[in-house]
């Protein structure tokens, strides 16, 4: 750990109001799993507000799914509520994050609030139209997850606000798929992608196409969705859609991969996600 990361205070509030009040103080930071904070904790951190005591580790069915923000990824992976598609795409993303033991510690709320472009959970959740419930000093508000991210490591959370819950609405009858490409099996995504779609009267409808790690925030490509909706599934359609999706990306070149490679892989992963999601919508596993 970096010796400069030296918060003076540790709090473990037992109610949300206290949590928000503590977070409104200068230099206060939320800690849930801690897998990012204990690695990248900024020197400006003065206090840690541990929100694991607020009873936010759960996944339950209630007008769709409700997932508490401090739920660990391994907890999600054990839930019978995620056994079938399209919900299952959340488990697929959860299962690709980090390594097995890390998933006991990392939380879905942390993965979202970290707001790194390569995060796996947001891509799958946005494909299911997830929203987040935010608790703050002036109460609670609900925001679509798609609108939660402003930029790399920047969200719309204001002073004293923290993530309370992820709400996944009741889904249409649909198939979904999550795809990720890394350098080895345990890796952050060079590119990740998710697709959800329904088939109505033989035509694709209500599709969602989301890409990660190729834009400052998770990227939902509505132009690609428009290309698919109302059409019959063909190889050519999928190829065209995949290109529209990759054309919308703004990947960077870094030591992990070049922008050109990321763009190329975006179209491959979107293509594969659409094909798999379509198969699942038809009823195959």
């Amino acid at each position: 750990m970096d010796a400069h990361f030296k918060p003076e205070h540790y709090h473990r509030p037992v109610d949300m109001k206290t949590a928000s009040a503590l977070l409104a103080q200068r230099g206060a930071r939320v800690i849930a799993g801690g897998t990012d904070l204990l690695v990248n904790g900024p020197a400006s951190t003065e206090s840690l507000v541990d929100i694991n005591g607020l009873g936010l580790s759960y996944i339950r069915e209630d007008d769709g799914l409700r997932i508490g923000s401090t739920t660990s990824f391994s907890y999600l992976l054990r839930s019978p509520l995620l056994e079938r598609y399209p919900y299952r795409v959340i488990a697929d993303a959860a299962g690709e994050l980090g390594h097995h033991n890390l998933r006991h510690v990392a939380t879905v709320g942390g993965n979202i609030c970290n707001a790194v472009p390569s995060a796996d959970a947001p891509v799958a959740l946005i494909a299911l139209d997830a929203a987040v419930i935010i608790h703050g000093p002036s109460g609670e508000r609900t925001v679509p997850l798609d609108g939660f991210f402003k930029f790399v490591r920047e969200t719309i959370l204001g002073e004293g606000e923290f993530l309370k819950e992820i709400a996944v609405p009741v889904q249409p009858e649909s198939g979904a798929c999550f795809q990720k490409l890394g350098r080895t099996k345990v890796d952050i995504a060079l590119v990740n992608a998710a697709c959800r779609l329904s088939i109505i009267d033989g035509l694709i409808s209500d599709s969602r196409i989301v890409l990660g790690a190729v834009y400052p925030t998770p990227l939902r490509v509505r132009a690609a969705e428009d290309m698919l909706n109302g059409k019959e599934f063909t190889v050519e359609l999928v190829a065209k859609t995949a290109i529209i999706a990759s054309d919308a990306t703004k990947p960077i070149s870094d030591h992990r991969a070049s922008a050109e490679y990321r763009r190329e892989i975006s179209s491959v992963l979107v293509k594969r996600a659409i094909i798999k999601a379509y198969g699942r919508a038809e009823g195959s596993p």
Partner: protein
Amino acid sequence: MLPEKELTIVGTSPEMKLTRNKVTGRAEFTVDMRRPGMLYAKMLRSPHASANINGIDYSRALALSGVVAVITYEDAKYLYKPSHGSSREYGLDDMVRYVGDKVAMVAAETEEIAELALGYIDVDYEVLPHIVDMEEAMEPDAPVVHPERQGIDCDGNILDHNIQEWGDVEEGFKKADFIIENRFYTPRVCHAALEPHAMLAEWDLDGNLTMWSSEQTAFMIRDSLADALKMPRSKIRFIVPDYVGGGFGGKYESAEKIALAILARKAGKPVMWRLTREEEFYTTRTRSPCIFESRTGVTKDGVFVARQMRGIIDIGSYAWGAIMSSRAASYMTMLYKCANIKYTGYGVYTNTPPSGAMRGFTSTPIHYAMEAEIDEIAAAIDMDPLEFRLKNKLNVGDIIPLNGVAVSSSGLEETMLKGASAIGWHRRNAKPGAPDARYKRGIGMASYCPMLKGTERSIGNAVLKSNVDGSFHLLLGLADIGQGLRTIMAQICAEALGGILDEINLTLADTQTTPWGTTTAASRSTIETGGAVKDVAEKMKRRLIELASVMMGLHEGDLDTKEGLVYELANPGNSVRFGEILHHPDVYLRGDNVIVLKSTYSVPQFVPPYGSQFAEVEVDTETGEVRVIKMVAASDVGRAIHPKSVEGQLEGGIHMGIGFALAEELKIDPVTGAPLNPNFLDYKLFRAGDMPELKIIIVEPVDPYSVYGVKGVGEMTVIATAPAIRNAIFNATGAKVFRLPLTSENVLAALKEGHV
């Protein structure tokens, strides 16, 4: 040579000594040690790739509560003399030559205080132009990494320039029906042992220094400290603890130990220094990045007529790695017959992390080039690459051009044939390129000989000491770095002595008490020190038999030993235990019961190990991802002293080789020289689920010259893994990738363009 009697301990796989301590958490590594009053050290490191230091003011650091001492070049500019070549490095210096270079050290009551104190040290840097690219570093106007050595041993940044030729390559090329030219690049990779470096230094008031450190050598470090600090060697005690968490060439003598010793002296207390994982990646020596430009000629029947190589080896900022350059030519002469071979090499300084020894030395990168080329040549002349290798290989009795020595034993052909059978060589694509499909499969191979030693001779020492009860202490100067040296030496001792394995206890790598030893490296420990162990054990056996013959009233020639007994050959029931011999009043009173014997041994001639590896891969042609389905490694180990341990070395070598092939590279920013991925998130080690199916085949031709016919195993399979995979990709897709690692991005580019 007398025939070996039936071996009962060598060739078996007993429980490894000390493993129970490892699996229960009792094992004390250097970093687990505590000494009374111990302080903690941290190193201030340069943010610049090249700079002069005009002054360091650490008064603010010293004023912090808990800070005890700070040292700079003013305290520690002592010359470090490495075991290879001449030195250009100091304990601490007033010039820095890479991002991360050592600047100053702090000792404080806690590690946290020491780290915070680094921010209170003011350094007056005069930033200089720097050079990162090794080819640009060779140009006449390039910034110079070691200006103080110009005209002494380097010309600009070129430290080593060697030309080695056997025969006449120009004449050879005239006979070629087919000539191929290629350019290969192999990257900077790291040892990445799980245990980061850790060392502890303590002085007493008589001026004696004791150091504990996780290393592959005790004596070479002690000697370099004694030379630098101008102390008698007897006043430095260097101890490698019984547990070292992996070395692979990276835990070695270094200038940093001089700095730590000086810091501990100034602080007046023991000082523990451990590296962070980040420091482990970019401030310890790495494998040199290499460029190999090859020109190779063959006849249409597939016989080598000329092999030429121009090598540029990036030795980084300090000179230890220069030997990578001067040794490179050797590997061209070890495996295949060719009358005309020429190597032109350059060892070049750059302002990057210093490079040094890593498993396989230069044989690892150069075999990538040499073995990749063979498959391309074979494809071009429409010949099976296995047939090509069988046709051209050196055989027993052939003279190795490098040292004029005849090949004493060789399992190479057996490794090729058994390995080919195990992978199903007949299943490969007859011509490179599987049928069109998203996934393409292919099979490739590579062979190798890691040279290990050239013409220089080095020695092994062993001391064997008896206790009155017939148990023994074996004292060796080498360190066990996790590969099981302790048990293997005990096996050799017990076998040669006729003793009981569990009753032989070893002390290793303590310069105060063990005889001089070199390093546990270069796959030489079993051969050299094992040879000394066998010799001293046989001496002890003869001594015991001599004493027993008096007790038993028999001639020495009528007696032998086994399982801790001396027994009569004609009547095995007539025996005495070693302890009885030593307890006998006639013996006891003469003081004979404590027998201390020593042997020094040098292997009579070079003993070449060989191996062949076969890989089956599946390439995803849409993404470039390469999945290794199966890896077969057939290795000529001479004889496996401890077969399970040998398997473990070969399996571990494959892991390192696969990483080198597919995923590992320490990336340096080409502009700033800063490391980009000094952590496990971005320096990709293979994990359990990444590994392919492995098959290990051990081939034992039993060399006539070495102890029990053994050959060095430690560096074997890391070498041929990458070229076998590359050749499998070539077989699967026809794509040639000239640079490592074979990441999905590099492979996809090669699939599109035909090569990368």
